[in-house]
């Protein structure tokens, strides 16, 4: 009873804070100076129509690198927490109901048809990140969704762990190498102007941004697939 009252009190206080925030919120009429500068600079300096991708992969690319490191640590952490479960399977999951029922015909056939389409869609999202809405993280998440679909269709499916981890490592190393190339040949770490900017708005433009997008997409897709794979019993 006392706990219930405490919960109600806490939620009510949070609600009071949030209500105050909402009531006093005033919609912006113009961009703040930093955002204005980004919106002006990204098309002019980096040659990328999508300002958000320009920020993510050049001005704040170091943060993106850190984020990828966080994903790597999560893959390692999930592996650490859930590791060596094969040995336990017989003892601790013996009394659990066996999930041995096969997936239905619809799911299996649907997976066969959809997985190639999802892969093409992911490639489209990743490679058009500098032109339109999309990019490495989003496309990588789409790749991982096809991994989930494959697992739903056949839970005993084995992913090629060796391939996934070596692709992921290679993409990570290349990402950092492109960054170092920016340090040597352009004006700073992960500067996209190591490659020619090209014509504004075309597929091969915006310097190294499409390349970084592809590397990021490969890395995120592999990493998320590894994380999903680790959760299987």
């Amino acid at each position: 009873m006392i706990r219930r009252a405490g919960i109600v009190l806490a939620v009510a206080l949070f609600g009071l804070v949030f209500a105050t925030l909402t009531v006093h919120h005033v919609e912006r009429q113009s961009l703040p100076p930093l955002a204005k500068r980004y919106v002006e600079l990204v098309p002019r300096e980096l040659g990328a129509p999508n300002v958000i991708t320009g920020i993510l992969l050049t001005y704040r690319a170091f943060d993106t690198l850190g984020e990828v490191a966080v994903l790597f640590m999560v893959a390692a952490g999930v592996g650490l927490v859930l590791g060596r479960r094969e040995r336990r399977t017989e003892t601790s999951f013996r009394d659990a109901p066996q999930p041995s029922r096969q997936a239905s015909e619809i799911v299996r056939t649907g997976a066969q048809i959809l997985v190639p389409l999802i892969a093409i869609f992911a490639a489209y999202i990743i490679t058009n990140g500098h032109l339109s809405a999309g990019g490495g993280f989003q496309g990588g998440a789409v790749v991982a969704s096809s991994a989930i679909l494959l697992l739903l269709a056949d839970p005993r499916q084995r992913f090629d762990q060796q391939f996934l981890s070596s692709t992921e490592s290679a993409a990570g190393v290349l990402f950092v190498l492109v960054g170092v190339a920016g340090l040597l040949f352009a004006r700073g770490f992960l500067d996209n102007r190591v490659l020619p900017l090209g014509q504004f708005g075309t597929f091969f433009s915006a310097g190294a941004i499409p390349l970084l997008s592809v590397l990021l997409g490969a890395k995120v897709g592999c990493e998320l697939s590894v994380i999903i794979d680790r959760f299987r019993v």
Partner: protein
Amino acid sequence: MISTVVLATGLTLILIGIWGMLTHRNILRIVIAFSLISTGTHILMVAIGYVASGTAPIIDRGLSTTEAPMRAVDPIPSALAVTAIVIGLAVTAIMLAFAIRLYEAKKTLSIDAFTESKW
């Protein structure tokens, strides 16, 4: 006006998440409540970045380079939302991994069974 509605939606989601996290005893439900909080935070960030009658900061036929600083919304909260989504996914994955381990230890997902760390 629009951003105030979106802001209220995000804050309501956060509030529902806090309430769910405090009232439910099942670990999976607590994880879901946490995901609600993180989704609410993303909506909140997008609402903060909105500029009155603005459009997505992507230069194309509908938005020229010269008029972009006048008509685009703030791109920085959007870029941060991408970061926040990835971190939210990471935290959820770790929480679910721990949930599996806790279930293996006590054969239950009720948080009342784990009294060792209670003070």
